[in-house]
């Protein structure tokens, strides 16, 4: 009996363009999995962003638009408002990196949350700008060496990293905000459950739902994929704790 198959919402014959062992692949697959389970394919408009995930529209068999760097939540807002004005059934989500969501696009992201925009945002936090070769980003942790913090992130010199899920949780318009990781099967299955919840909250019309996914970047971290997962488990989750920071249905 077939107990698992590649999600239907992954385009047939599509090949992910991520580096070997990158958690982006696991995350995209989980998103596709949840779209399948909730039967959302026919009403979904996905918003891709700039960065490693830019080719999302080549992987997912849903209608998809590319947003300028950082503007995914604004583009999603426009889509959502337009679909509502036309009284059409719809499901809108963004898939962004941490640089996209929390640095260049922080204004658009945070204000979408504050407005309680009824969209879901998925943010991949791999603590650097991966696509451009691993520069210091908004989530680079103190001490972390990147190509633009060669001596390590220094709080006096570079400032502090952002805890995105906690910040988004503070907004009154947020219905759900959580941080998950993908370093082992237990966490992957939990991430799937959390993504599903964030998608369902939109379908229930509860407002802005957000999932931050702690992800590996083996290429730029210069670690093997397995070592990268260990780094997330042993180091990053100490700085970026996993959990649900806001849940309007459980307060």
């Amino acid at each position: 009996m077939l107990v698992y198959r590649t999600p239907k919402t992954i385009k047939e014959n599509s090949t992910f363009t991520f580096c070997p062992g990158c958690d982006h692949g696991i995350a995209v697959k989980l998103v596709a999995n949840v779209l399948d389970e909730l039967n959302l394919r026919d009403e979904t408009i996905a918003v891709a962003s700039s960065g490693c995930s830019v080719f999302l529209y080549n992987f997912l068999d849903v209608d998809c638009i590319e947003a300028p760097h950082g503007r995914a939540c604004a583009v999603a807002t426009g889509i959502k408002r337009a679909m509502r004005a036309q009284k059409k059934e719809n499901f809108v989500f963004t898939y962004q990196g941490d640089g996209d969501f929390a640095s260049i696009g922080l204004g658009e992201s945070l204000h979408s949350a504050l407005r309680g925009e009824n969209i879901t945002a998925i943010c991949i936090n791999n603590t650097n700008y991966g696509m451009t070769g691993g520069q210091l980003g908004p989530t680079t942790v103190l001490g972390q060496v990147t190509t633009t913090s060669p001596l390590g992130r220094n709080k006096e010199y570079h400032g502090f990293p952002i805890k995105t899920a906690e910040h988004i949780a503070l907004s009154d318009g947020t219905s759900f905000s959580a941080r998950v990781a993908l370093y082992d099967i237990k966490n992957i299955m939990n991430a799937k459950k959390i993504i599903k919840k964030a998608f369902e909250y939109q379908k229930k019309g509860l407002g802005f739902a957000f999932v931050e996914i702690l992800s590996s970047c083996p290429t730029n971290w210069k670690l093997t994929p397995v070592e990268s997962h260990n780094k997330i488990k042993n180091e990053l989750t100490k700085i970026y704790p996993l959990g649900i920071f806001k849940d309007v249905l459980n307060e």
Partner: protein
Amino acid sequence: MSYIKIDNSKCKSCYLCIDVCPHKLIKKSKIIGKTGEYTVEFEDNENKCIACASCAYMCPDNAICEVYKNE
């Protein structure tokens, strides 16, 4: 017997599946894949596979595309 199906054309040789399999049923193959490294193969001579699909969920490239459970 339970088993998995591997699409070697998609395997990028990250070996996360080797690490995650609870019964260590996946190992490097002799086939070189798209990244120039050996891809993986499934070998289960003692019918240990429980079709948990951990490898499939872990695989970032959908190379492990199907999992079958013995009934």
